[in-house]
């Protein structure tokens, strides 16, 4: 599935590598932001009153 996704990226091979890295980085950042938000919402928001 991943190799198919990679091959479907537009541009020459060098561009595909950069595009793939960028996509992975953006996904990781989105996951980190989601983890932070869910952590505050579900587990622990720091214990501040108010």
């Amino acid at each position, binding site marked *: 599935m991943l190799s198919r996704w990679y*091959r*479907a990226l537009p541009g020459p091979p060098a561009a595909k590598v950069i595009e793939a890295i960028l996509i992975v980085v953006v996904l990781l950042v989105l996951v980190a932001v989601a983890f932070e938000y869910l952590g505050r919402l579900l587990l*622990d928001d720091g*214990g*501040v009153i108010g």
Partner: protein
Amino acid sequence: MASLRHGTTGRRVLRRVDPFGRPTVTLCAMTRTVRVIRGIGWAMIWAGVLIFAFLAYQLWGTGILTGIEQNAARTELAESGVELPDEPAPIPIRDDGSVDEEALDEVVETGPATLTTEPIPGAGEAFAIISFPSLSRDDRPQTGDQPADDLIGYGPSYVVREGEDLSNLRRGPGHYATTPIPGQPGNAAIAGHRTTYGAPFNRLDELRAGDPIIVETAIGTHVYVVRDPRTVHDESDMLDVGDGSGWMAVRSTALWVVDPLPGAYLTLTTCHPEYSSRQRLIVVAELVSGPNARYVSEGNA
């Protein structure tokens, strides 16, 4: 995508092509049911991976980040040139680890009668160390008179930063900027994570009335004793009270817990119950020893 019959088996096959129209692979066709089950299976595997990653990051990864920040804050405090008193007053400790307050009265009476003030730290600045000697797991403080500095070596201790915003709390406990500095008259309040980011206040529910809490600041070592919250606040406002009467549970919006109090108190706030931010667990402690203890005990605050 073309639908054909396999030459030997006669089963239906799919000839797949890439986005440029070139043939790539030939696969035995899956029935719709198999495809759905396979899709659900992959979705569950990825959901499991994400949930595991989420819990690992929250319960373990964030603790590593806070540990690094705490080490940096200790170095920052050491390099700030804060000079603590050479011989802080001894703290009489009972066999059960609590403070013997009758014996402590004599210590307080010998302290300075004037108020020692402290400059307000800047936002985010590390300015104090808080420790919980009674939460020591395996080397409880010895009984008898213990120099307050010696007690700091027992139990968990954390560097406190100025400000209760989330960025500070990721680095350790944060002092409510609208309340007095610990050691000063009034109600000094500190917030901390219970579950994530090093969980500095994870074990506040193990504190009992009479247990010591020690706060070091630039002007000296302040010893607080945990009070039964019902002796300080109105019980009807509480949702729950700890077995050892060392804490209370309140709504997360109970701003009254950080309201000013007569005397000198320390209020610690964290999430409750554990693994939830639904309520707040509150510990209230009273100043019994330190540079301003006599000033406060003589009714000046």
